[in-house]
């Protein structure tokens, strides 16, 4: 549905077959894991079996003596990277911490922390060699919980770490000088929280916990690196940002950025997890030592234990409302487990927590706590699913106390343009209320649940989206097609959506644009494929290059028509003379005349757009809970989301559905089980329990198109926010079905059975 007047487009809004489609359904597309080079060695990582241990010594002599083994590297071979905090798209990172995460130096900080890497003729020999490396550990007591880690008497994971106080997200912060596992403390403050609660007739205050969850991309981390004799390094991998990784490599290896080339191969999922570097560094170091290209891939267990999942969180939420259903104040305390190094997404979580609502008095305390678990990484709307879960659950309780329908309660309190977020920023034009109203008008809302133990839940969500720089270039071919070079790895169909904007601008078909993704030596800088920004920012770059090309072609037409360029105009794919209407040539016809009018035309442009339109969404879900087993069946699901102008309809809808499915997994199944020594006990897909096809229903969408006024095609980020509401929506639906409020994720069957037993015990 379109909610405001929208430009009429020919290509935008359709669903052409993707340009890389044939390669991907025939198995010809080359992903990072598929790369192979002649003379290539295989690398493997030795990982700490302990969650917290001093590395006293490493003896690799037996491994090096194994036939077929070429080299071993350890933390001793690593340079010490700069202790600088940088913004990395969605979360911040510190070069020194990143380097120490890639390879432990003196201490292993989590089970799975890399301590050595070996290169051998085959993977199997490399694995055998790992078992021959002797590491002498002094096992230390691990810190395994955020709230525990905040206490004064627990071991300090980083003995010199002090707490920084941050006034806003990405604030470098003020150092308190207090030694603590709390790396950061942040506070968002709006209005007068005490006055707000005084105004309230009802106040609900609850505590919540969520588990560590993983992005679960199907392609494991991988990298093939070649350190050439001229000290040029080339890395072939699957990443969410070649230019960012090039910078990280340069900082960790202390190598000039100009001598590192990152080649993006197809990427088998990322969801934020393929922003940092892991294997790229040891692969390059092993290549330098051996003179061979070195390929490394992770096992699934290594992916779970050694890469960055999303933080577990311990949270409090307190919200007050008047009798007539106006929310007057909201307070939250968010404790996020950062993992082994600082930098959880607690700041983003705080920013998104109550943002779908207009609340005048807000206070959110955030804590970034280091624990002996893998370093957290970005995961689709980082921090926000965790934080919105308590917000949506408490708001649901308030709606019940006030006696309002949960959707009406949200509509009454919905944030609108001009209202302030918790960080004081005013909302720009957006479709928050439209999503809620669209759901209210839906068949789903009007339908009956049709049985016992069934319930319906709703929840809303916000995600700010990102801008980031982009570069692209085009070359116009004589047959009227366009070669389009991009630098943002295509993780879910973006190369087609970007090609579609190019086609729209020239008035040609999507199939007449040939997009390709280039390496870092072959195109200008591109930000991360993250923050729901790829289509948005490359749309800007395409807008620039197509506009420039159109001006150049106008001059060619003017030459043909023996007039001045300003007398030529372009509309709907046709160049025409303003004076003589019969003088007109289509884009395709003009493309065929470039050689005779001055030669070929190609254009490159770089942009750094701001004005990423924020995303808002509301979801509705019907569940049936089996009171005997606690199993939750999802009967019907509808996600309403403001998607701005849809470029590729089906891929926009696919993003909404895919995020929803991940949110459902987060809510109901997915969880890192740890024992008291910090050992993960379920590091395989089905023990971790990602949703299978049998777990999910069809996922219905209501795509509200409220174009982003700050984008030439009205694009708004669409890819992340849908993971946010399922957590709250399912908790609320379970309550509606069987009367228990689940506040500890995942809402696994055994927890629901226990909650039902407690409830029934009390009522008997």
């Amino acid at each position, binding site marked *: 549905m379109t909610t405001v007047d929208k430009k009429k487009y020919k290509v935008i809004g359709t669903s052409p077959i993707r340009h890389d*489609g044939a390669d991907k359904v*025939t198995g010809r597309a080359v992903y990072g894991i598929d790369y192979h080079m002649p003379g290539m060695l295989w690398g493997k990582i030795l990982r700490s079996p302990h969650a917290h241990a001093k590395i006293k010594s490493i003896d690799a002599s037996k491994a090096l003596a*194994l036939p077929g083994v070429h080299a071993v590297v350890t933390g001793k071979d690593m340079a010490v990277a700069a202790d600088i905090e940088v913004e990395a798209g969605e979360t911040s990172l510190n070069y020194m911490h990143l380097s120490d995460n890639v390879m432990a130096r003196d201490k292993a900080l989590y089970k799975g922390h890399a301590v050595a890497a070996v290169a051998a003729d*085959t993977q199997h020999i490399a694995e055998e060699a790992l078992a021959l490396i002797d590491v002498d550990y002094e096992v230390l007591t691990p810190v395994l919980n955020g709230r525990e880690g905040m206490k004064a008497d627990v071991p300090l994971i980083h003995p010199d770490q002090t707490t920084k106080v941050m006034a806003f997200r990405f604030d470098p912060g003020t150092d308190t000088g207090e030694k603590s596992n709390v790396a950061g403390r942040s506070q968002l403050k709006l209005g007068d929280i005490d006055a707000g609660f005084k105004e309230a007739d009802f106040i609900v205050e609850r505590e919540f916990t969520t588990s560590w969850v993983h992005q679960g991309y199907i392609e*494991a981390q991988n990298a093939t690196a070649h350190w050439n004799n001229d000290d040029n390094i080339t890395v072939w991998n699957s990443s969410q940002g070649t230019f960012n990784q090039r910078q990280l490599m340069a900082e960790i290896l202390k190598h000039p950025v100009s001598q590192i080339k990152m080649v993006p191969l197809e990427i088998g999922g990322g*969801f934020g997890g393929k922003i940092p570097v892991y294997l790229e560094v040891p692969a390059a170091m092993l290549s330098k030592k051996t003179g061979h290209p070195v390929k490394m891939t992770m096992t699934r267990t290594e992916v779970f234990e050694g890469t960055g999942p999303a933080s577990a969180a311990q949270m409090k939420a307190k919200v007050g409302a008047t009798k007539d259903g106006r929310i007057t104040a909201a307070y939250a305390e968010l404790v996020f487990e950062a993992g082994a190094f600082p930098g959880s997404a607690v700041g983003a979580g705080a920013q998104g927590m109550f943002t779908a609502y207009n609340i005048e008095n807000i206070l959110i305390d955030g804590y970034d706590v280091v624990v002996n678990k893998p370093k957290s990484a970005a995961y689709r709307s980082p921090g926000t699913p965790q934080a919105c879960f308590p917000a949506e659950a408490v708001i649901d309780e308030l709606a019940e106390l006030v006696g309002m329908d949960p959707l009406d309660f949200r509509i009454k309190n919905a944030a609108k343009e001009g209202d302030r977020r918790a960080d004081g920023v005013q909302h720009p034009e957006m479709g928050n209320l439209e999503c809620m109203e669209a759901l209210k008008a839906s068949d789903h809302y009007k339908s009956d649940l049709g049985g016992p133990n069934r319930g319906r839940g709703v929840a809303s969500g916000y995600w700010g989206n990102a801008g980031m720089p982009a570069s692209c270039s085009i070359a116009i071919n004589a047959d009227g097609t366009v070669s389009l070079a991009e630098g943002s790895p295509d993780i879910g169909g973006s190369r087609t959506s970007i090609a579609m904007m190019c086609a729209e601008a020239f008035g040609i078909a999507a199939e007449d644009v040939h997009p390709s993704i280039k390496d870092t030596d072959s195109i200008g800088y591109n930000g991360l494929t993250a923050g729901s920004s790829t289509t948005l920012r490359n749309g800007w770059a395409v807008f620039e290059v197509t506009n420039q090309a159109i001006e150049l072609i106008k001059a060619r037409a003017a030459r043909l028509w023996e007039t001045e360029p300003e007398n030529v105009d372009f509309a709907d794919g046709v160049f025409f003379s303003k004076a003589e209407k019969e003088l007109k040539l289509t884009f395709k016809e003009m493309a065929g005349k470039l050689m005779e009018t001055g030669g070929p035309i190609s254009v490159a442009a770089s942009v750094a757009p701001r004005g990423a339109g924020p995303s808002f969404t509301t979801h509705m879900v019907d569940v049936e809970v089996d009171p005997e087993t606690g199993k939750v069946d999802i009967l019907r699901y509808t996600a309403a989301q403001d998607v701005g102008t849809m470029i590729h309809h089906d891929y926009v809808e696919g993003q909404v*559905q895919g995020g929803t499915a991940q949110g459902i997994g987060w809510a109901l199944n997915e969880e890192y089980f740890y024992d008291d020594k910090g050992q993960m006990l379920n590091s395989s897909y089905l023990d971790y329990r990602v949703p299978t096809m049998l777990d999910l229903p069809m996922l219905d969408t209501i795509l509200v198109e409220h174009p982003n006024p700050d984008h030439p095609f009205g694009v708004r980020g669409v890819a992340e926010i849908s993971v946010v509401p399922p957590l709250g929506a399912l908790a609320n639906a379970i309550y509606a079905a069987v009367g228990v409020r689940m506040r500890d994720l995942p809402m696994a069957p055994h927890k629901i059975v226990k909650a039902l037993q407690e409830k029934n015990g009390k009522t008997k």
Partner: protein
Amino acid sequence: MAAVKTHVRTTLNGEATEYLCEPNQSLLEVLRDVLFLTGTKEGCNDGNCGACTVNMDGRIVDSCLVLGVEAEGSDILTIEGVATPEGLHPIQQAFLENAALQCGICTPGFIVASKALLEKEPNPSEARVRHWLAGNLCRCTGYDKIVKAVVDAANTMGGKK
């Protein structure tokens, strides 16, 4: 240390194919690292995800759970054998038309598994499709468009449209 290799004879995508493999190499490793048929993907290497699904003597298997030496005498179909010089298989076409892939890494496994289903049962229900494909994980799509693609392909192959 590298072990002595075994000589294995198979039929692979309709062609007589011989290879040498070590006793500890899986069929998946043989396909990818010995024969360079990288269309069959590795997602977990422990039989959880189905990205490495191939058809072996009429049954779909996770090729990571089959040893290379076990394939002696077998007739194996991988994703590389699904399309013909005349064009894409209707299931491949349906995946494209229904936008049933995002990153595409799980797609070869889904297509090989779906083909086996539709050859056995030309008109499966949505529930049957979900049951048959429950061994194939996709993390991008939420499965909605994959289910639609398989049902759509069944209709095309059954001549219903």
